[in-house]
């Protein structure tokens, strides 16, 4: 492989990885606190993307005079709010009744919520199953550095993924709410006895997780400007894999897992595109066999 190609692929991998990492952050966040693999997370992303789509389309029919950066920021806010709302709604209606029930029934419910959102959106007459072009919120600008092509949206993806990870780490480690979250993740009942409002903490986690999904949604839609109700399935699955790879429940781990999976997938694909996906999964399996707890996950030693 030529050197420029190598670096180009690295950039490609970072871009894809950033998307995975953004989604994985939300997965890992919810998992870390209530041990639920929230399969619907990828669909919160889709809801966020559609919210921005309708919002932006509406604004753009009114006026074209809004500066792109303002439009993007407004869109981001809409995405965050939409993601947070749908996440909390799912939590309230579907997950909360199962809080103290077998863990796997909550998982199946999550699969149900995921299916519901996908099919419901595809069935709604004003959304439907078709692919829609996502409007350009920011004008894409490409530039070439030493033969390697870059663009502003790639940099935005990578930058925002890192910023959000830092923000999240800060929230979890440095704030009162973060402390409460960590307490709930250790032991719900003990946390309750210590005067922590467990349900409020979980709500907060879902709001943040949903907002992250919304952010991932708008970025994904800007990077790959085609949205449809099933748009979350494949990246969601990969992001979940990334979260596990990094050590599920671990925020920097999700980030690392996302970027590693993205890069691995890109290089595997460029090596052999027929087997690219399979190779990415094979890497995952090998990593997990060597480190069953994921890359940054803590080893759970069992007490006998």
């Amino acid at each position, binding site marked *: 492989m030529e050197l420029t190609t190598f670096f180009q692929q690295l950039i490609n991998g970072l871009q894809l990885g950033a998307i995975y990492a953004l989604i994985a952050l939300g997965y890992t966040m919810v998992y870390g606190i209530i041990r639920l693999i929230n399969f619907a997370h990828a669909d919160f992303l889709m809801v966020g993307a559609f919210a921005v789509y309708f919002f932006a389309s509406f604004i753009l029919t009114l006026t074209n005079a809004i500066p792109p950066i303002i439009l993007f920021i407004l869109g981001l806010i809409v995405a965050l709010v939409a993601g947070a709302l749908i996440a909390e709604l799912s939590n309230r209606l*579907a997950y909360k009744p199962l809080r103290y029930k077998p863990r796997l029934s909550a998982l199946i419910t999550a699969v*149900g919520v995921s299916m519901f959102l996908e099919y419901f959106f595809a069935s709604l007459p004003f959304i439907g199953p078709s692919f829609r072009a996502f409007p350009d919120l920011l004008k894409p600008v490409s530039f070439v550095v030493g033969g390697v092509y870059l663009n502003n949206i790639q940099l935005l993806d990578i930058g925002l993924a890192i910023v959000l990870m830092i923000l999240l780490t800060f929230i979890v480690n440095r704030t009162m709410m973060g402390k409460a979250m960590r307490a709930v993740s250790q032991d719900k009942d003990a946390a309750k006895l210590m005067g922590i409002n467990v349900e409020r903490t979980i709500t907060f986690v879902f709001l943040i997780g949903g907002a992250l999904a919304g952010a991932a949604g708008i970025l994904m839609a800007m990077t790959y400007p085609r949205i449809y109700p099933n748009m979350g399935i494949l990246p969601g699955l990969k992001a979940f894999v990334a979260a596990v790879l990094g050590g599920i429940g671990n925020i920097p781990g999700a980030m690392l897992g996302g970027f590693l999976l993205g890069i691995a997938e890109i290089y595997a694909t460029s090596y052999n595109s027929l087997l690219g996906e399979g190779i990415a*999964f094979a890497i995952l399996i090998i990593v997990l066999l060597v480190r069953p707890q994921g890359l940054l996950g803590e080893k759970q030693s069992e007490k006998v």
Partner: protein
Amino acid sequence: MKKVWRNLPTLRLLIYAVALYILLMLLSSGGILNDYLMIIINICLIYVILATSLNLINGITGLFSVGHMGFAAVGAYVAGTFTTLVWKLPNDGSVSTTLLFIVALVLGGIGAAIVGALIGMPALRLKGDYLAIVTLGFGEIIRTIINNIDAVGGPRGLLGIPALSSFTIIFVATVVTVLILRYLVYSSHGRAMISVREDATAADLVGINTTKYKVWAFVIGAFFAGIGGGLLAHLIQLAHPTQYGFYASFLVLIVVYIGGVGSMTGSILAAFVLTILEKYLLPMLLQWAGLGVEWRMVIYSLLLIIVMIYRPEGLMPREAKFMIPEDH
């Protein structure tokens, strides 16, 4: 008499099965159960095989496999390849087609079991969600591999599989599967598997080779999934990689958990209820209500959520009496 009836659950199970078979056959030949209902019943039965075999892995042994259709894919492709090849040979009618089909199914099951053993290996080191993700990854790898083997059609699928899955064969295969799994679960080996689910460390320390039983659970579960896959392929006369993705695996997982994890009765019941609901009742209801067919899955997933909220342990969390052998 009543006592005998109560004390011989196996006999009861068989009588139920035979009665059901005769009933269905009568209804079918009488034209009351048309081809549409028969194909649904066939699919129900195949789901019974898939769900009970997954239940052995997830429910009985307490592992967490989400790539069950990967095993079914191996079974479908092995069995399908075998029959398509054999059917090309000149046949003077001396070899019974049913016999050949059984051979094909068993070969498919063995193929799946070998893959199951391979996938069972990581189960020794991995737990819970990590194991889940690895089985999911394996399932996708199997699909990717099949997609790239042009000899079995690649993305075109394996075509021209003879239509050998008659209702009778599917029914017998289902009953045999259920009987075998039931006899296995209610034996000392089954109890050993259950002890792995309950507390693997403690099981190890009362002399259970937990490693062995984890792998066996995968091997046996995969074997029957392979049989299910083989039956499906010969029912719809083709095998296609997209039928065996993670989404399809989730549907089997849903059957197991809606039915009640660890309960074979639950898996059987849920396989019927969910398949009939999805493929028969909902389309009919929608037609009656004048809604588009696309709403079917919306209602289906909504019902799924509601059932889980109101019956988190599933529809039939406990085994029915006739599913527990008398000598247990």
